[in-house]
Every structure is written in structure tokens, then in C-alpha cells.
């Protein structure tokens, strides 16, 4: 029965989550652990309620940085992947560079970009997010565009179809699932990168800054509450990417992993 299957999928994680939170609460209260070490879920929740307007405002700022960076990185990633698929020499040069970029701690670029632009704090942060988002989108989209099954290749050859026609009719639609895989990875990466980029100096606004400030004031429930906000923001981005994938691909959408 379908209901039984849905229950089997949903119940273990929900049960696990509930037990985890309950256990956490009991541990903190029972062992009388100070909030400097580990705040109880109830303290975190009340702090979240108290500060919710501040957290929302910061979430909007960080979320906007993440969104702009994500959009920019995605567009550049797709364009470069399309060129790399069409021109193998370009692909041969760019692909290893991007693989190298993937190995580099991208957030380390934040101070550099602040020097280069040094106008407001948002642009360098958004650029860092863009670079971080660009990498998975480029890699996955290129992978999708490069896959051309032998039977499709021969079919297109028998039609004397041009390279662009092949790109349009086969490679691009075939690459869509791969693109969305990259987009899903990039979307949650964008939020994390946006939060972390606020560590490297610049204006003290945004979720990352708020977390650092709270920790600096030893207000750990507030810090955790802000973390909760960041988690929710990351989830929102991920879910939107997932829904977008479902809307475009319909039945072809892949599972959440």
C-alpha cells in the first residue's frame, strides 16, 4: 500500500529527529549542563523567538548574497560548460582549471576580492558565492553535455545534422538532469559560503556575523538560534532547487541524493 511505503520512508527520520531532540533536552537538564557548553533546545527556541526579527533581517541579507551569487555562478557555469562541450580545446584548458579550483578553499578568496573591489561588503561576498556555485554547476553540466550515447550519435550522423543541431536537440535536453544535480549542490553550498564569507572582515551584517557576535558575547543560545536560521535558509534554497527540477523535468527528476 502506498501509505505504508510513505510511512516507512518518513517515520524513521522523523522518529530519529524527535528522539534526538528529546534526548538532547533531557541530557542538558538532567546533567545540569551550563548553556556555555551546550544550550538546551528549549533555550535555543526561546532565544530564536526573542530575536526572530533580527535573525530574519540577517537571513534576508545573507540570503540575498547567496541568491545573487548563485544566479551569477549558475549562469557563468552553464555558459562555460556549453562552450567547453562545443570546443574541446577550450574544454581541455578550462576543465582542469576548474577541477583545481574545486580543490582550493574558495572562501580564502574573500579577502582578495575585498581588496580588489573594496566598495561595499556585499559584492566580494557575492562573488565568493558565485565562484563556489559555479564549480558544481560547471562540472555537472559539462558532464551532462558530454554524454552522447552511440546510438544517438549515429542517428544524428545519419541525419547529417550539424554540431549545433546536435547540441540543441540531444545534448542540452539530455544534460538537464545533470544540470539540476549541479544546481542542487550549488544551492546549499551558496548559503554556507555566504555565511562563512562574512567571517573574513567587512560589515558586521548577516547570519555569519550574527553568529560570531553572539559567540563573542557568550550568548550561545542566540548563536545556535542563528545557526538554526542558517539551516532553514539552506533548506529553503535546496527545496526550491528541488521543486524547480521537478517542475522542469517532471518524471525525469532524480531522487534527492
Amino acid at each position, binding site marked *: 500500500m502506498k501509505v505504508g511505503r510513505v510511512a516507512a520512508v518518513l517515520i524513521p527520520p522523523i522518529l530519529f529527529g524527535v528522539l534526538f531532540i528529546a534526548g538532547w533536552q533531557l541530557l542538558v537538564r538532567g546533567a545540569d549542563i551550563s548553556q556555555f557548553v551546550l544550550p538546551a533546545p528549549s533555550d535555543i527556541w526561546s532565544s530564536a523567538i526573542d530575536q526572530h526579527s533580527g535573525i530574519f533581517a540577517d537571513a534576508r541579507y545573507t540570503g540575498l548574497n547567496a541568491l545573487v551569487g548563485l544566479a551569477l555562478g549558475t549562469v557563468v557555469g552553464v555558459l562555460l560548460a556549453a562552450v567547453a562541450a562545443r570546443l574541446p580545446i577550450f574544454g581541455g584548458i578550462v576543465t582542469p582549471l576548474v577541477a583545481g579550483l574545486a580543490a582550493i578553499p574558495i572562501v580564502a578568496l574573500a579577502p582578495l576580492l575585498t581588496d580588489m573591489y573594496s566598495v561595499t561588503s556585499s559584492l566580494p561576498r557575492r562573488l565568493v558565492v558565485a565562484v563556489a556555485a559555479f564549480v558544481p554547476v560547471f562540472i555537472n553540466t559539462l558532464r551532462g553535455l558530454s554524454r552522447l550515447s552511440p546510438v544517438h550519435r549515429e542517428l544524428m*550522423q*545519419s*541525419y*547529417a545534422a550539424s554540431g549545433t543541431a546536435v547540441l540543441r*536537440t*540531444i545534448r542540452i535536453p539530455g544534460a538537464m538532469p545533470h544540470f539540476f544535480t549541479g544546481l542542487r549542490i550549488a544551492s546549499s553550498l551558496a548559503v554556507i559560503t555566504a555565511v562563512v564569507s562574512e567571517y573574513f572582515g567587512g560589515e558586521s551584517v548577516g547570519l555569519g556575523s550574527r553568529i560570531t557576535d553572539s559567540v563573542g558575547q557568550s550568548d550561545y543560545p542566540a548563536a545556535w538560534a542563528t545557526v538554526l536560521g542558517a539551516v532553514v535558509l539552506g533548506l529553503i534554497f535546496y527545496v526550491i532547487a528541488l521543486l524547480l527540477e521537478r517542475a522542469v523535468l517532471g*518524471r525525469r527528476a532524480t531522487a534527492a541524493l
Partner: protein
Amino acid sequence: MSQETTTSEAPPPAVELSGVHKTFALRRGSVVALEGIDLMIGRGEFVSLIGPSGCGKSTLLRVIGDLLPPTGGEVLVNGKSARRARLDQDYGFAFQQAGLLDWRTVQANVELPLELHGVDRGKRQRRADELLQLVGLSDFAKQRPPQLSGGMQQRVAIARALAESPALLLMDEPFGALDEMTREHMQTELVRIAGETGAAVVFVTHSIPEAVFLSNRVVVMSPRPGRITEIVPVDLGERTDDTREAPQFYAAITQVREALRGRAVDATDDVVAGIERAQGAL
């Protein structure tokens, strides 16, 4: 390659092969896939290529279709060079895996070659409707390939291959992945469709009964180097469900089998000779 347009009154044969030769270069040495192939296929004729694995039948099909260049010899399709015939879309190709595009509807799949060649939307749709009716899939026009069975997908692939009313169909074991019952049904359908459109067909297969049922002539090939060993004419008249139970059917099957087998002794020699030749070049 010269662009021949025949000036005689009779239209040119569908396929004309003279001394066709194909060698594949390996990392070390080479393999002779086809040697000295001479074959002529008339308009509307149904010809099967049959032979053991490695006899070059799929290679020959692709040489005819200009998907592989021959190393030597001449290939004329519809009186033109193979390349010209491909550019002019004089043939349709059907592969073993149907090769449909999962993200398009059945109708859009059939329209694909027309779309690629700039036919306008209205004409495309009408032609697709026609073809789907021909293969009996009109009701499934708006479905997507993953929703269809293997046999149905192959029918869509055949419809697509006929989109531009080619004079020639090239088919590479299209029924290979289907079960026997579906296969027999598809064979009957294919004979009907080929008859109705008047297209010549070059059909690669592993199955002797299939080759006999479908063809006017069965071309028996032997492996490495790929050669035509015998051409068996088949005269069964109009193909019906009863044809498969007629004694002439079995006689023809036996003939083809003998041709395959009877050459098997020589074929082994050729295989060994071929390997020796290849190794000698290593």
C-alpha cells in the same frame, strides 16, 4: 565522389556495392572487416545480411549508410555516392536500441528528422500522423518513450526512419531485443510497411527464420575477413501468418543454414588466416 544522376529511364538500383573493402586500424596492426563485397539491391527489394558475429554485417550496413567510410571500392546509393545520399536523406536508419529521445513525445520523436531539415510545423505534424497510423500507434502520439514497450518503441523508430519517404531503409537488428512473439508480429508489420511504401530494405539479423521470412534474398556472410559467401533467393510469395508453417519456409531456412554451416569449415580457415594476418602485423 561524382554526383551521378542517372539518365537512363529506369531508376537506379537502391544500392550498388563494387569491391567494397574495409580495414580497421588497431593500436597494433589492423583487422580486415570487409573484403571484396559486390552486391546490388534493386528498388523495393528486401535483402537480409546474416552471418556469425564478426562477419562485418553491421559494418557493411554502416558503410552503405555513410556512417563509416570504406577503405576501398565503390558504394552507390540511389545512384549517388553514399555521402550524397546521406546528405540528401535518401535513406532512414533503424538501430537495435530504438534510440528514441525520452524527453520528447512519440509524435515529436517521429518529427525529429523533419524538424532538423526545416520542414514547417503543419507539414511535420501531418506526416507524423500519417506515419503513426502506418505503424499502428496513432493512439500513443502524446505518450513518452519510457511508457512504451520495446516493440512499440521500435515501431516508433521505424516510423521515424520513414519520415522523409526514403527509397531505402537500413536496419541493424532492430528486433534483436524483443521477445519471440513480438518479433514475429513486428516482422509481419515490417513486411507490410515496406510493401506499402515501396522502400528497399537492407536488414541485418542473427536469426535465420527472421531473415527468410522478411527477405527476397538472404546474403550469407562469413567472418574475418568479412565476405559474402552465398546469396540465397527466397520465394515465398505474399507473407501471411501461415507462411511460417509452410514447407517452403523450412526448406528456405535449411538452405540458409546449410550456406552458413557449409561455409563454416572454410570460415574457420578464414578466421585463423585472418588472425594470423593480424598478428603478423603486430
